[in-house]
């Protein structure tokens, strides 16, 4: 019986657990509790994905009110996949977060952090699972408000300004989205995504729908930090507590990319978004510029967390590039990279958590001699860095392979050259850190100071996942290509 209610539990579990974790005595207890809840969510998402792969999409009516009037939770291949990514990353990062959070966050606020974390998780899962457009906005704000709080918990006062800037931008983005949803409602009279998708073609000519489309795309682009609307991201990621950065880097922007897919394909439909509106002509240049400029800027960063943040902006560009090809292979590449980059960046930000734990900062200079002082941590950085570059046997390579195949399918080989050349910029920024860590001697008298096992172990699990899914990509590629075909409306 319970299996029927899986979709709602996916969101309810973290949502209800969040206040409970606040009431628990002691930060350690709430950590254990939140981690268990997160793993519970992960288990649910695994079950959901299995169910979707076997039986096709699941539709769940909240409170028994049937769609299109009631709120529908709708799980198909793509959002089952996103649920899996979000809950998986959250669980792994949270498992390793405790030691690092104790060090980075003020004692009296640690309970708050876990509460906000669970709320953010609930919000992100909610965005992914819901089939109701207005519901998207609600969950968007739940996740956003809690992530402002999470970021503000970072050590140092700059976390506060970073969080404030994110709040302003995030609110504008969310408001744009809600305007867009309202305008669609005006044109179609429904809030259910599938219903919207069915009714929109009839009114696609109207200016209301076009305005709605514009508002939505800009709002989502703000949320996913698509260049040039990325300016909030570097500060937010570099001043947040490291585990929070690992969590958000792996999930928040990814969910926004999912929204882009959902709105442009399921709701507006590929014909409208890419045919009539020629969205790809906007997305592709922005993606290319973003990849190039953000990678270039990353090279000159003196703080490694910030470097990774800029690299994230570039990587968003790769995902959007894949999407803007509007082909099955292109979308597959985009969705694949969504998963793969979540693994890469979360792993690398966890490495930052390790370094921050010992050094109290992640400036490039702090990395001097770390190759010797924190061998396992730095080995993880090198491995994650290789995956970011896209060396074979890592997930980064799989994404790049599909992206290049997709581009060549279109016959746009200069673009293929561009993709490969920009991944060389990744070599430069990764190797700057590697060189400092291994070839610049540490300060006098600095001994070995490996990070505690509790952070290191989840970090390595993430790194290993980078390799596992890099070698055996059948699961990820299979799911991504199915999701891509479904989005394009090509028979499964």
């Amino acid at each position: 019986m319970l299996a029927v209610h899986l979709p709602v539990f996916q969101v309810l579990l973290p949502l209800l657990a969040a206040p409970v974790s606040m009431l628990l005595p002691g930060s350690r207890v709430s950590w254990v509790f939140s981690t268990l809840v997160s793993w519970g969510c992960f288990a649910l998402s695994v079950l959901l994905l299995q169910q979707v792969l076997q039986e096709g999409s699941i539709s769940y009516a909240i409170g028994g009110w049937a769609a299109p009037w009631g709120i529908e939770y709708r799980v198909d291949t793509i959002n089952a996949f996103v649920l899996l990514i979000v809950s998986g990353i959250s669980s792994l990062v949270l498992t390793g977060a405790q030691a690092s959070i104790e060090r980075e966050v003020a004692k009296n606020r640690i309970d708050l952090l876990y509460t906000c974390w669970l709320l953010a998780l609930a919000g992100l899962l909610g965005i992914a699972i819901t089939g109701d457009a207005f519901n998207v906005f609600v969950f968007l704000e739940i996740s956003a408000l809690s992530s402002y709080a999470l970021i503000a918990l970072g050590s140092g006062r700059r976390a506060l300004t970073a969080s404030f800037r994110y709040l302003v931008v995030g609110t504008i983005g969310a408001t744009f989205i809600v305007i867009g949803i309202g305008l669609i409602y005006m044109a179609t009279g429904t809030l259910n995504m599938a219903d919207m998708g069915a009714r929109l073609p009839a009114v696609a000519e109207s200016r209301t729908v076009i305005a709605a489309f514009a508002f939505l795309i800009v709002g989502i682009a703000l949320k996913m930090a698509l260049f040039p609307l990325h300016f909030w991201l570097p500060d937010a990621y570099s001043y947040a507590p490291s585990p929070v950065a690992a969590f958000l880097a792996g999930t928040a922007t990814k969910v926004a990319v999912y929204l882009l897919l959902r709105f442009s394909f399921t709701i507006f439909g590929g014909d409208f978004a890419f045919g009539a509106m020629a969205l790809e002509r906007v997305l592709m240049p922005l993606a290319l510029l973003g990849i190039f400029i953000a990678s270039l800027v990353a090279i000159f960063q003196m703080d490694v967390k910030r470097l990774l943040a800029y690299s994230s902006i570039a990587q968003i560009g790769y995902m959007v590039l894949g999407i803007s090809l509007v082909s099955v292979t292109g979308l597959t590449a985009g969705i694949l990279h969504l998963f793969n980059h979540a693994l890469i960046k979360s792993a690398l930000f966890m490495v930052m958590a390790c370094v921050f734990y010992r050094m109290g900062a992640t400036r490039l200079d702090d990395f001097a001699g770390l190759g010797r002082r924190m061998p396992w941590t730095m080995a993880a950085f090198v491995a994650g860095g290789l995956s970011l570059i896209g060396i074979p046997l890592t997930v980064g390579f799989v994404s790049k392979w599909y992206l290049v195949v997709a581009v060549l399918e279109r016959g746009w080989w200069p673009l293929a050259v561009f993709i490969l050349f920009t991944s060389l910029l990744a070599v430069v920024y990764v190797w700057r850190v590697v060189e400092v860590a291994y070839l610049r001697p540490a300060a006098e008298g600095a001994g070995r100071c490996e990070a505690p096992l509790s952070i290191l172990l989840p970090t390595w699990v993430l790194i290993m996942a980078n390799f596992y899914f890099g070698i055996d990509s059948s699961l990820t590629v299979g799911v991504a290509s199915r999701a891509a075909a479904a989005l394009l409306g090509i028979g499964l």
Partner: protein
Amino acid sequence: MNGETTMLLALAIPVLTAVLIGLLGRWPNMREAVTLVGAGMLFLCVASLTPGVLAGERPELLFIEFFPGLKLSFLLEPLGMIFALVASFLWIINSIYSIGYMRGNQEQKQTRFYICFAVALASTMGIALAGNMLTLFVFYEALTLSTYPLVVHKESEAARAGGRTYLGILLTTSIAFLLLAVVWTWSATGTLDFRAGGILAGEMHGPMVGVLLALYMFGIGKAALLPFHRWLPAAMVAPTPVSALLHAVAVVKAGVFSVVKVVVYIFGLEFMQAEPSTDWLLYMAGASILIASMVALRQDNLKRRLAYSTVSQLSYVTMATAILAPLSMVGAALHIAAHAFGKITLFFAAGSIYTAAHKTKVSELNGIGWRMPWTMGAFAVGSLSMIGVPPTIGFVSKWYMLQGAFSTGQMFAVAVIFVSTLLNAAYFLPVVYAAFFRKPAVGEDSPEHGEAPWPVVLALTLTAAGTIVLFFLPALPLGLAKGLMGL
């Protein structure tokens, strides 16, 4: 034991060796023993595969599927056999040499050194046995990365700069060109298998074939075709055993090996002959030979001179391949072995001089031959093989290349070989002459020294002997090289 199991062993032994070296790092004697045993076992393993391959067996291993239709696969064929034999045999000798050299020069971080060495060898085996282009690419990148720590071993500013050039050029070319070529091939043909006669015929034609060939040839940066050769001199900051085995044998040979593989099994000789857009390769390789030789003439640093000589010798293989005649292919395959033995001898000698006399420049070597007769004797033998004078194996490979060039009427190639032979002589023989027939400059303060430590001398004597033995008994490499062309 059947061929498949042995192949698996050949891939696994260097990896296991690396692990064991890591575990035994605290006990240097044990660690070095493991290296030697590992190298020995690897060679036995590879050698035991030889008769089967000569008899026409082609053992194959298939692993997990990377992408739908694209597996990690291994397939042993004659060219890979030559490469694997040479690399694994020279690893034994190089290990002996390393022990003498690293201890003699009191180098730091020797455990890391030996681990990376073993991993590099594992990657080399992967390249030699690769059954499709993607597998080859995987190990190609692994080889680049595993040799980086060896290049920057000294951790000095110079080493860092050298390492940057090394990694920069090798990764740039492989990611920007080679990977693109591989993906392009994949999307054009739907396969990346190495097949006799190539896979491109009928799928592509016109100028695009020439472009694809360019992406492959420049993408395989390890073959050091001009203008992407600069990593090789840069890599000379590494300790000499690294220069010797990796930058005279494993890494650079992986490059030209890939070149031959691509031409023979991806493009196919007949297809290349039919496509005029691929003709440029011959001229590019010829120019590369001559230019690099001329640069080598002007190098005073001995290792840099050897490096530029390597650049030129690698292009011999590329040019012989580009002649597209079966006989020149045999020459190319033979030259992989010939140059390996000759050049490793020369590097061993350079390292030996550095260890015993702490000299690195050609101009400092006057009269050194009488103090280090074994070293300089071996150097002379190696030089002769580079020039292609009998009785060394270098002569045999050049002979086949010339035959191939004559048979197809490629007078350009013939001319290049003759001119470059003169150039080779011009930059090697003066070293030998100075070492034996010039007196040390008066007033030069040179502390008394004799030969290098015995493992060093033993190693270079063995490889020098190898170049001569192979001249008299070329049956094995020749048989394999002919097997490549089905002759």
